[in-house]
Protein backbone atom coordinates (compact mmCIF):
# COMPACT_ATOMS: atom_id res chain seq x y z
CA UNK A 1 0.00 0.00 0.00
CA UNK A 2 1.19 3.46 -0.98
CA UNK A 3 4.65 4.56 -0.04
CA UNK A 4 4.82 6.46 3.18
CA UNK A 5 6.75 9.65 3.57
CA UNK A 6 10.02 9.37 5.42
CA UNK A 7 9.25 10.01 9.03
CA UNK A 8 10.39 13.10 10.84
CA UNK A 9 13.79 12.79 12.40
CA UNK A 10 15.17 10.41 9.80
CA UNK A 11 17.34 13.21 8.42
CA UNK A 12 20.53 14.59 9.87
CA UNK A 13 18.58 16.77 12.31
CA UNK A 14 15.09 16.38 13.73
CA UNK A 15 13.83 19.31 11.62
CA UNK A 16 14.95 18.07 8.23
CA UNK A 17 12.41 18.01 5.45
CA UNK A 18 13.13 15.12 3.19
CA UNK A 19 11.14 14.56 0.03
CA UNK A 20 12.31 11.08 -0.91
CA UNK A 21 15.57 10.08 0.60
CA UNK A 22 18.18 11.81 2.70
CA UNK A 23 20.83 11.01 0.12
CA UNK A 24 18.92 12.82 -2.59
CA UNK A 25 17.78 16.09 -1.15
CA UNK A 26 17.47 17.62 2.27
CA UNK A 27 16.04 20.89 3.34
CA UNK A 28 16.65 21.95 6.87
CA UNK A 29 15.00 25.31 7.35
CA UNK A 30 15.62 25.71 11.12
CA UNK A 31 19.34 24.99 10.72
CA UNK A 32 19.66 27.50 7.91
CA UNK A 33 17.66 30.08 9.82
CA UNK A 34 19.83 29.44 12.85
CA UNK A 35 23.02 29.93 10.86
CA UNK A 36 21.70 33.08 9.20
CA UNK A 37 20.84 34.44 12.62
CA UNK A 38 24.28 33.55 13.99
CA UNK A 39 25.99 35.03 10.95
CA UNK A 40 24.05 38.29 11.12
CA UNK A 41 24.66 38.65 14.86
CA UNK A 42 28.35 37.94 14.46
CA UNK A 43 28.56 40.45 11.64
CA UNK A 44 26.67 43.02 13.64
CA UNK A 45 28.92 42.66 16.66
CA UNK A 46 32.18 42.46 14.75
CA UNK A 47 31.39 45.37 12.46
CA UNK A 48 30.28 47.54 15.34
CA UNK A 49 33.49 46.69 17.21
CA UNK A 50 35.84 47.28 14.33
CA UNK A 51 34.28 50.13 12.48
CA UNK A 52 33.68 53.77 12.95
CA UNK A 53 30.26 53.91 14.57
CA UNK A 54 29.39 57.48 13.66
CA UNK A 55 26.42 57.85 11.37
CA UNK A 56 25.36 61.02 9.71
CA UNK A 57 22.12 61.88 7.98
CA UNK A 58 22.59 63.65 4.69
CA UNK A 59 20.64 64.46 1.56
CA UNK A 60 20.18 61.68 -0.95
CA UNK A 61 22.52 61.55 -3.89
CA UNK A 62 20.49 63.70 -6.20
CA UNK A 63 22.23 63.67 -9.54
CA UNK A 64 19.70 65.28 -11.84
CA UNK A 65 16.82 65.02 -9.38
CA UNK A 66 17.28 67.80 -6.85
CA UNK A 67 13.70 67.66 -5.69
CA UNK A 68 12.55 64.36 -4.21
CA UNK A 69 8.91 64.82 -5.12
CA UNK A 70 6.36 62.05 -5.49
CA UNK A 71 6.57 62.45 -9.25
CA UNK A 72 10.13 61.19 -9.24
CA UNK A 73 9.36 58.14 -7.14
CA UNK A 74 9.61 54.71 -8.55
CA UNK A 75 6.20 53.17 -9.10
CA UNK A 76 5.06 49.64 -9.74
CA UNK A 77 4.90 50.25 -13.44
CA UNK A 78 8.37 51.80 -13.50
CA UNK A 79 9.62 48.79 -11.62
CA UNK A 80 8.05 46.50 -14.17
CA UNK A 81 9.29 48.56 -17.11
CA UNK A 82 12.48 46.53 -17.77
CA UNK A 83 10.44 43.34 -17.56
CA UNK A 84 7.84 44.66 -19.96
CA UNK A 85 10.58 45.82 -22.22
CA UNK A 86 12.35 42.49 -22.21
CA UNK A 87 9.33 40.25 -22.44
CA UNK A 88 7.10 42.71 -24.26
CA UNK A 89 7.48 41.23 -27.70
CA UNK A 90 7.55 37.60 -26.69
CA UNK A 91 5.18 37.24 -23.79
CA UNK A 92 2.88 40.21 -24.01
CA UNK A 93 2.53 40.81 -27.76
CA UNK A 94 3.16 44.47 -27.05
CA UNK A 95 2.33 46.92 -29.81
CA UNK A 96 3.68 50.42 -29.55
CA UNK A 97 2.17 53.30 -31.42
CA UNK A 98 3.98 56.62 -31.67
CA UNK A 99 2.15 59.63 -33.04
CA UNK A 100 4.73 62.28 -33.82
CA UNK A 101 3.19 65.53 -35.08
CA UNK A 102 5.05 67.21 -37.94
CA UNK A 103 7.41 70.07 -37.02
CA UNK A 104 5.50 73.24 -36.31
CA UNK A 105 2.46 71.43 -35.05
CA UNK A 106 1.94 72.36 -31.42
CA UNK A 107 0.16 69.16 -30.43
CA UNK A 108 2.13 66.93 -28.11
CA UNK A 109 3.57 63.71 -29.39
CA UNK A 110 1.70 60.66 -28.22
CA UNK A 111 3.00 57.26 -27.32
CA UNK A 112 0.81 54.33 -26.50
CA UNK A 113 1.37 50.66 -25.85
CA UNK A 114 -1.10 47.84 -26.10
CA UNK A 115 -0.08 44.87 -24.00
CA UNK A 116 -1.82 41.51 -24.21
CA UNK A 117 -0.87 39.09 -21.50
CA UNK A 118 -1.02 35.72 -23.20
CA UNK A 119 -0.16 33.83 -20.05
CA UNK A 120 -3.05 35.44 -18.27
CA UNK A 121 -5.37 34.75 -21.15
CA UNK A 122 -4.42 31.12 -21.58
CA UNK A 123 -3.79 30.05 -18.01
CA UNK A 124 -6.22 32.20 -16.04
CA UNK A 125 -8.92 33.84 -18.11
CA UNK A 126 -9.79 30.84 -20.28
CA UNK A 127 -9.97 28.24 -17.49
CA UNK A 128 -11.82 30.76 -15.35
CA UNK A 129 -14.44 31.21 -18.04
CA UNK A 130 -14.66 27.46 -18.52
CA UNK A 131 -15.20 26.86 -14.79
CA UNK A 132 -17.84 29.56 -14.50
CA UNK A 133 -19.56 28.38 -17.67
CA UNK A 134 -19.63 24.78 -16.51
CA UNK A 135 -20.84 25.76 -13.07
CA UNK A 136 -23.66 27.77 -14.63
CA UNK A 137 -24.74 24.71 -16.58
CA UNK A 138 -24.52 22.42 -13.56
CA UNK A 139 -26.36 24.94 -11.45
CA UNK A 140 -29.59 23.82 -13.12
CA UNK A 141 -29.39 20.88 -10.73
CA UNK A 142 -30.03 23.21 -7.82
CA UNK A 143 -33.45 24.17 -9.15
CA UNK A 144 -35.01 20.86 -10.10
CA UNK A 145 -38.33 19.72 -8.73
CA UNK A 146 -38.39 17.09 -6.01
CA UNK A 147 -39.75 14.59 -8.50
CA UNK A 148 -36.72 15.13 -10.69
CA UNK A 149 -34.40 14.62 -7.75
CA UNK A 150 -36.22 11.36 -7.13
CA UNK A 151 -35.63 10.49 -10.79
CA UNK A 152 -31.91 11.04 -10.21
CA UNK A 153 -32.02 8.69 -7.24
CA UNK A 154 -34.01 6.12 -9.16
CA UNK A 155 -31.69 6.22 -12.16
CA UNK A 156 -28.65 5.80 -9.92
CA UNK A 157 -30.30 2.83 -8.22
CA UNK A 158 -31.27 1.19 -11.49
CA UNK A 159 -27.83 1.73 -13.01
CA UNK A 160 -26.13 0.14 -10.01
CA UNK A 161 -28.61 -2.75 -10.02
CA UNK A 162 -28.02 -3.30 -13.72
CA UNK A 163 -24.27 -3.36 -13.13
CA UNK A 164 -24.80 -5.96 -10.42
CA UNK A 165 -27.07 -7.94 -12.75
CA UNK A 166 -24.60 -8.15 -15.62
CA UNK A 167 -21.39 -8.76 -13.66
CA UNK A 168 -20.74 -12.17 -12.27
Amino acid at each position, binding site marked *: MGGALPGPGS*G*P*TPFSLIAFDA*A*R*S*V*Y*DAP*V*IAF*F*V*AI*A*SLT*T*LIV*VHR*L*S*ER*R*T*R*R*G*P*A*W*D*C*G*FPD*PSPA*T*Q*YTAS*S*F*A*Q*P*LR*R*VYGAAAFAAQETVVMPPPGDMRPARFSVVVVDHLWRVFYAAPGRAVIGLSERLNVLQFLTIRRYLVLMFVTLVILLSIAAVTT
Partner: protein
Amino acid sequence: MTRDLVVQFLAQGAQMTLVLLIAPLAVGVVRRVKARLMRRQGPPLLQAYLDLAKLLRKESVIAEGASWLFRSAPYLIFALTWVAAALVPSFASGLMFNWAADVVALVAVLGAARALLALAGMDVGTSFGGIGSSREMMIATLAEPAMMLIVVTLAIAAGTTRLAGVADFFIAEPFAVRVSLALSLISLVIVALAENARIPVDNPATHLELTMVHEAMVLEYSGRHLALIEAASHLKLALYLSLLICLFAPFGMAPATAGLSGWAIGLAAWIAKLLAGAVLLGVWEVSIAKMRVFRLPDFVGIAFVFGFIAILLAFLTRGVFA
Protein backbone atom coordinates in the same frame (compact mmCIF):
# COMPACT_ATOMS: atom_id res chain seq x y z
CA MET B 1 29.93 11.00 18.54
CA THR B 2 30.33 14.27 20.36
CA ARG B 3 33.95 14.59 19.28
CA ASP B 4 32.94 13.95 15.73
CA LEU B 5 30.38 16.66 15.96
CA VAL B 6 32.91 19.10 17.37
CA VAL B 7 35.37 18.32 14.57
CA GLN B 8 32.62 18.75 12.05
CA PHE B 9 31.60 22.00 13.60
CA LEU B 10 35.17 23.28 13.58
CA ALA B 11 35.67 22.23 9.98
CA GLN B 12 32.49 24.03 9.05
CA GLY B 13 33.61 27.12 10.90
CA ALA B 14 37.00 26.90 9.25
CA GLN B 15 35.38 26.78 5.85
CA MET B 16 33.17 29.77 6.57
CA THR B 17 36.15 31.78 7.77
CA LEU B 18 38.29 30.67 4.87
CA VAL B 19 35.74 31.66 2.27
CA LEU B 20 35.35 34.99 3.97
CA LEU B 21 39.09 35.57 4.08
CA ILE B 22 39.89 34.45 0.59
CA ALA B 23 37.04 36.15 -1.28
CA PRO B 24 38.65 39.63 -1.49
CA LEU B 25 41.85 38.02 -2.70
CA ALA B 26 39.99 36.54 -5.66
CA VAL B 27 38.61 39.97 -6.49
CA GLY B 28 42.13 41.40 -6.19
CA VAL B 29 43.42 38.78 -8.61
CA VAL B 30 40.72 39.61 -11.13
CA ARG B 31 41.51 43.31 -10.97
CA ARG B 32 45.23 42.73 -11.16
CA VAL B 33 44.95 40.44 -14.18
CA LYS B 34 42.73 42.93 -15.97
CA ALA B 35 45.14 45.79 -15.28
CA ARG B 36 48.18 43.84 -16.42
CA LEU B 37 46.46 42.81 -19.64
CA MET B 38 45.71 46.48 -20.24
CA ARG B 39 49.37 47.21 -19.61
CA ARG B 40 48.65 49.06 -16.42
CA GLN B 41 50.47 48.55 -13.18
CA GLY B 42 47.21 47.78 -11.38
CA PRO B 43 46.38 47.80 -7.71
CA PRO B 44 48.17 45.51 -5.29
CA LEU B 45 46.65 42.07 -4.86
CA LEU B 46 45.47 42.95 -1.38
CA GLN B 47 43.77 46.17 -2.44
CA ALA B 48 40.27 44.75 -1.83
CA TYR B 49 41.15 44.11 1.84
CA LEU B 50 42.48 47.63 2.16
CA ASP B 51 39.33 49.03 0.58
CA LEU B 52 37.15 47.17 3.04
CA ALA B 53 39.27 48.32 5.97
CA LYS B 54 39.07 51.89 4.79
CA LEU B 55 35.34 51.77 4.34
CA LEU B 56 34.92 50.36 7.82
CA ARG B 57 36.84 53.30 9.28
CA LYS B 58 34.75 55.92 7.52
CA GLU B 59 31.59 57.31 8.97
CA SER B 60 28.33 56.24 7.35
CA VAL B 61 26.14 58.77 5.63
CA ILE B 62 22.55 57.78 5.45
CA ALA B 63 20.14 59.61 3.22
CA GLU B 64 17.30 61.46 4.83
CA GLY B 65 14.20 59.42 4.43
CA ALA B 66 15.95 56.08 4.61
CA SER B 67 14.12 53.60 6.80
CA TRP B 68 15.28 50.84 9.15
CA LEU B 69 15.28 48.51 6.17
CA PHE B 70 18.06 50.50 4.58
CA ARG B 71 20.24 50.20 7.67
CA SER B 72 19.61 46.58 8.46
CA ALA B 73 19.70 45.23 4.91
CA PRO B 74 23.53 45.18 4.58
CA TYR B 75 23.90 42.95 7.61
CA LEU B 76 21.29 40.53 6.43
CA ILE B 77 22.56 40.52 2.87
CA PHE B 78 26.03 39.80 4.10
CA ALA B 79 24.86 37.07 6.45
CA LEU B 80 22.71 35.37 3.82
CA THR B 81 25.48 35.42 1.26
CA TRP B 82 27.91 34.10 3.83
CA VAL B 83 25.62 31.23 4.75
CA ALA B 84 25.07 30.50 1.07
CA ALA B 85 28.82 30.44 0.54
CA ALA B 86 29.13 28.03 3.42
CA LEU B 87 26.61 25.73 1.76
CA VAL B 88 28.89 25.17 -1.22
CA PRO B 89 31.50 22.49 -0.57
CA SER B 90 34.93 24.03 -0.99
CA PHE B 91 37.78 21.81 0.12
CA ALA B 92 35.82 18.88 1.47
CA SER B 93 32.50 17.43 0.43
CA GLY B 94 31.34 15.89 3.68
CA LEU B 95 30.99 18.94 5.89
CA MET B 96 28.07 19.09 8.23
CA PHE B 97 26.47 22.11 6.72
CA ASN B 98 26.36 20.61 3.24
CA TRP B 99 23.69 18.37 4.64
CA ALA B 100 21.42 21.14 5.71
CA ALA B 101 20.42 22.23 2.26
CA ASP B 102 20.68 21.29 -1.36
CA VAL B 103 21.35 23.48 -4.33
CA VAL B 104 17.69 24.46 -4.59
CA ALA B 105 17.89 25.92 -1.10
CA LEU B 106 21.11 27.64 -2.08
CA VAL B 107 19.38 29.40 -4.96
CA ALA B 108 16.61 30.39 -2.58
CA VAL B 109 19.00 31.84 0.01
CA LEU B 110 20.75 33.88 -2.66
CA GLY B 111 17.36 34.96 -3.95
CA ALA B 112 16.48 36.23 -0.48
CA ALA B 113 19.66 38.29 -0.39
CA ARG B 114 18.89 39.66 -3.81
CA ALA B 115 15.35 40.63 -2.86
CA LEU B 116 16.65 42.46 0.22
CA LEU B 117 19.18 44.32 -1.89
CA ALA B 118 16.52 45.36 -4.39
CA LEU B 119 14.29 46.60 -1.58
CA ALA B 120 17.14 48.52 -0.01
CA GLY B 121 17.90 50.03 -3.39
CA MET B 122 14.42 51.47 -3.61
CA ASP B 123 14.22 52.51 0.02
CA VAL B 124 15.57 56.04 -0.28
CA GLY B 125 13.39 56.80 -3.23
CA THR B 126 15.84 58.15 -5.75
CA SER B 127 15.53 57.04 -9.32
CA PHE B 128 18.91 55.39 -9.46
CA GLY B 129 18.09 52.87 -6.83
CA GLY B 130 14.85 52.07 -8.59
CA ILE B 131 16.58 51.62 -11.93
CA GLY B 132 19.12 49.32 -10.37
CA SER B 133 16.51 47.26 -8.52
CA SER B 134 14.20 46.82 -11.46
CA ARG B 135 17.06 45.85 -13.76
CA GLU B 136 18.46 43.46 -11.19
CA MET B 137 15.10 41.79 -10.93
CA MET B 138 14.78 41.64 -14.69
CA ILE B 139 18.11 39.85 -14.91
CA ALA B 140 17.04 37.56 -12.08
CA THR B 141 13.94 36.46 -14.00
CA LEU B 142 16.30 35.11 -16.62
CA ALA B 143 19.15 33.86 -14.49
CA GLU B 144 17.20 32.02 -11.81
CA PRO B 145 15.22 29.75 -14.16
CA ALA B 146 18.44 28.98 -15.98
CA MET B 147 20.03 28.13 -12.66
CA MET B 148 17.15 25.81 -11.80
CA LEU B 149 17.52 24.07 -15.15
CA ILE B 150 21.17 23.47 -14.38
CA VAL B 151 20.19 22.08 -11.01
CA VAL B 152 17.78 19.67 -12.64
CA THR B 153 20.39 18.51 -15.13
CA LEU B 154 22.84 17.83 -12.34
CA ALA B 155 20.20 16.11 -10.31
CA ILE B 156 19.41 13.81 -13.21
CA ALA B 157 23.09 13.11 -13.75
CA ALA B 158 24.13 12.56 -10.15
CA GLY B 159 20.80 11.44 -8.74
CA THR B 160 20.82 14.07 -6.04
CA THR B 161 20.41 17.80 -5.64
CA ARG B 162 22.85 17.92 -2.75
CA LEU B 163 25.99 19.68 -3.88
CA ALA B 164 28.21 17.41 -1.84
CA GLY B 165 26.56 14.41 -3.47
CA VAL B 166 27.07 15.86 -6.93
CA ALA B 167 30.70 16.59 -6.11
CA ASP B 168 31.20 13.06 -4.81
CA PHE B 169 29.67 11.75 -8.01
CA PHE B 170 32.07 13.71 -10.17
CA ILE B 171 35.03 12.81 -8.00
CA ALA B 172 34.13 9.18 -8.51
CA GLU B 173 33.82 9.65 -12.27
CA PRO B 174 36.22 12.49 -13.04
CA PHE B 175 36.31 12.10 -16.79
CA ALA B 176 32.62 11.77 -17.33
CA VAL B 177 32.51 14.51 -19.90
CA ARG B 178 29.14 14.61 -21.46
CA VAL B 179 27.37 16.96 -23.79
CA SER B 180 24.67 17.85 -21.35
CA LEU B 181 27.20 18.65 -18.65
CA ALA B 182 29.24 20.78 -21.03
CA LEU B 183 26.12 22.71 -21.88
CA SER B 184 25.37 23.07 -18.19
CA LEU B 185 28.86 24.41 -17.63
CA ILE B 186 28.43 27.12 -20.24
CA SER B 187 25.04 27.89 -18.84
CA LEU B 188 26.34 28.11 -15.29
CA VAL B 189 29.20 30.38 -16.34
CA ILE B 190 26.74 32.77 -17.94
CA VAL B 191 24.53 32.70 -14.87
CA ALA B 192 27.55 33.33 -12.68
CA LEU B 193 28.55 36.34 -14.78
CA ALA B 194 25.04 37.74 -14.59
CA GLU B 195 24.70 37.10 -10.87
CA ASN B 196 27.99 38.71 -10.02
CA ALA B 197 27.43 41.78 -12.17
CA ARG B 198 30.48 41.08 -14.29
CA ILE B 199 31.14 42.14 -17.87
CA PRO B 200 29.29 41.82 -20.20
CA VAL B 201 26.22 41.98 -17.99
CA ASP B 202 27.38 44.78 -15.78
CA ASN B 203 30.64 46.56 -15.19
CA PRO B 204 31.69 46.57 -11.55
CA ALA B 205 34.23 49.31 -12.19
CA THR B 206 31.98 52.01 -13.52
CA HIS B 207 29.24 54.27 -12.32
CA LEU B 208 27.74 55.17 -15.66
CA GLU B 209 24.09 55.96 -15.00
CA LEU B 210 22.77 54.49 -18.20
CA THR B 211 24.22 51.05 -17.80
CA MET B 212 24.89 50.30 -14.18
CA VAL B 213 22.81 47.75 -12.37
CA HIS B 214 24.41 46.59 -9.17
CA GLU B 215 26.19 49.83 -8.46
CA ALA B 216 22.98 51.79 -8.95
CA MET B 217 21.32 49.87 -6.17
CA VAL B 218 24.09 50.49 -3.66
CA LEU B 219 24.66 54.10 -4.64
CA GLU B 220 23.33 55.44 -1.35
CA TYR B 221 25.50 53.26 0.81
CA SER B 222 28.69 54.43 2.46
CA GLY B 223 31.01 53.56 5.29
CA ARG B 224 30.49 50.26 7.08
CA HIS B 225 27.28 49.53 5.22
CA LEU B 226 29.04 49.80 1.89
CA ALA B 227 31.85 47.65 3.25
CA LEU B 228 29.37 44.91 4.09
CA ILE B 229 27.75 45.09 0.68
CA GLU B 230 31.11 44.98 -1.00
CA ALA B 231 32.20 42.05 1.13
CA ALA B 232 28.95 40.30 0.25
CA SER B 233 29.58 40.72 -3.44
CA HIS B 234 33.12 39.42 -3.02
CA LEU B 235 31.71 36.43 -1.21
CA LYS B 236 29.22 35.85 -3.95
CA LEU B 237 31.99 35.80 -6.53
CA ALA B 238 33.93 33.29 -4.46
CA LEU B 239 30.73 31.28 -4.02
CA TYR B 240 30.07 30.99 -7.72
CA LEU B 241 33.69 30.15 -8.43
CA SER B 242 33.53 27.46 -5.75
CA LEU B 243 30.30 26.21 -7.23
CA LEU B 244 31.82 25.88 -10.67
CA ILE B 245 34.85 24.17 -9.20
CA CYS B 246 32.78 21.87 -7.06
CA LEU B 247 30.56 20.81 -9.92
CA PHE B 248 32.88 20.69 -12.88
CA ALA B 249 36.41 20.39 -11.46
CA PRO B 250 36.04 18.65 -8.13
CA PHE B 251 39.35 16.77 -8.31
CA GLY B 252 41.41 17.08 -5.19
CA MET B 253 38.38 17.74 -3.03
CA ALA B 254 38.44 15.71 0.14
CA PRO B 255 35.62 13.14 0.24
CA ALA B 256 33.37 12.78 3.24
CA THR B 257 35.59 10.20 4.89
CA ALA B 258 38.92 11.97 4.43
CA GLY B 259 41.06 12.88 7.42
CA LEU B 260 43.07 15.98 8.11
CA SER B 261 45.68 15.27 5.44
CA GLY B 262 42.95 14.87 2.84
CA TRP B 263 41.57 18.18 3.95
CA ALA B 264 44.94 19.86 3.57
CA ILE B 265 45.28 18.60 0.01
CA GLY B 266 41.71 19.63 -0.69
CA LEU B 267 42.36 23.07 0.71
CA ALA B 268 45.42 23.66 -1.42
CA ALA B 269 43.66 22.40 -4.53
CA TRP B 270 40.65 24.57 -3.84
CA ILE B 271 42.68 27.76 -3.37
CA ALA B 272 44.67 27.06 -6.51
CA LYS B 273 41.55 26.42 -8.54
CA LEU B 274 39.83 29.48 -7.12
CA LEU B 275 42.70 31.73 -8.09
CA ALA B 276 42.91 30.12 -11.50
CA GLY B 277 39.22 30.82 -11.93
CA ALA B 278 39.81 34.44 -10.97
CA VAL B 279 42.57 34.72 -13.57
CA LEU B 280 40.28 33.28 -16.24
CA LEU B 281 37.58 35.77 -15.26
CA GLY B 282 40.03 38.64 -15.59
CA VAL B 283 41.07 37.51 -19.06
CA TRP B 284 37.41 37.13 -20.06
CA GLU B 285 36.45 40.57 -18.83
CA VAL B 286 39.28 42.25 -20.74
CA SER B 287 38.47 40.51 -23.96
CA ILE B 288 34.78 41.37 -24.13
CA ALA B 289 32.72 44.56 -24.09
CA LYS B 290 29.82 45.50 -21.86
CA MET B 291 26.42 44.92 -23.41
CA ARG B 292 23.49 47.28 -23.57
CA VAL B 293 21.08 46.58 -20.77
CA PHE B 294 18.31 45.47 -23.09
CA ARG B 295 20.56 43.15 -25.01
CA LEU B 296 21.11 41.24 -21.78
CA PRO B 297 18.10 38.96 -22.17
CA ASP B 298 19.66 37.60 -25.33
CA PHE B 299 22.86 36.83 -23.48
CA VAL B 300 21.35 35.37 -20.35
CA GLY B 301 18.74 33.68 -22.51
CA ILE B 302 21.56 31.59 -23.95
CA ALA B 303 22.02 30.16 -20.48
CA PHE B 304 18.34 29.28 -20.34
CA VAL B 305 18.37 27.64 -23.77
CA PHE B 306 21.52 25.69 -23.02
CA GLY B 307 20.13 24.61 -19.69
CA PHE B 308 16.96 23.41 -21.38
CA ILE B 309 18.83 21.47 -24.06
CA ALA B 310 21.02 19.99 -21.36
CA ILE B 311 17.97 18.67 -19.54
CA LEU B 312 16.55 17.13 -22.70
CA LEU B 313 19.85 15.45 -23.44
CA ALA B 314 20.19 14.30 -19.87
CA PHE B 315 16.77 12.70 -20.07
CA LEU B 316 17.62 11.05 -23.36
CA THR B 317 20.83 9.57 -22.03
CA ARG B 318 19.61 8.82 -18.57
CA GLY B 319 20.29 5.17 -19.18
CA VAL B 320 23.99 6.03 -19.22
CA PHE B 321 23.81 7.84 -15.91
CA ALA B 322 21.67 5.36 -14.10
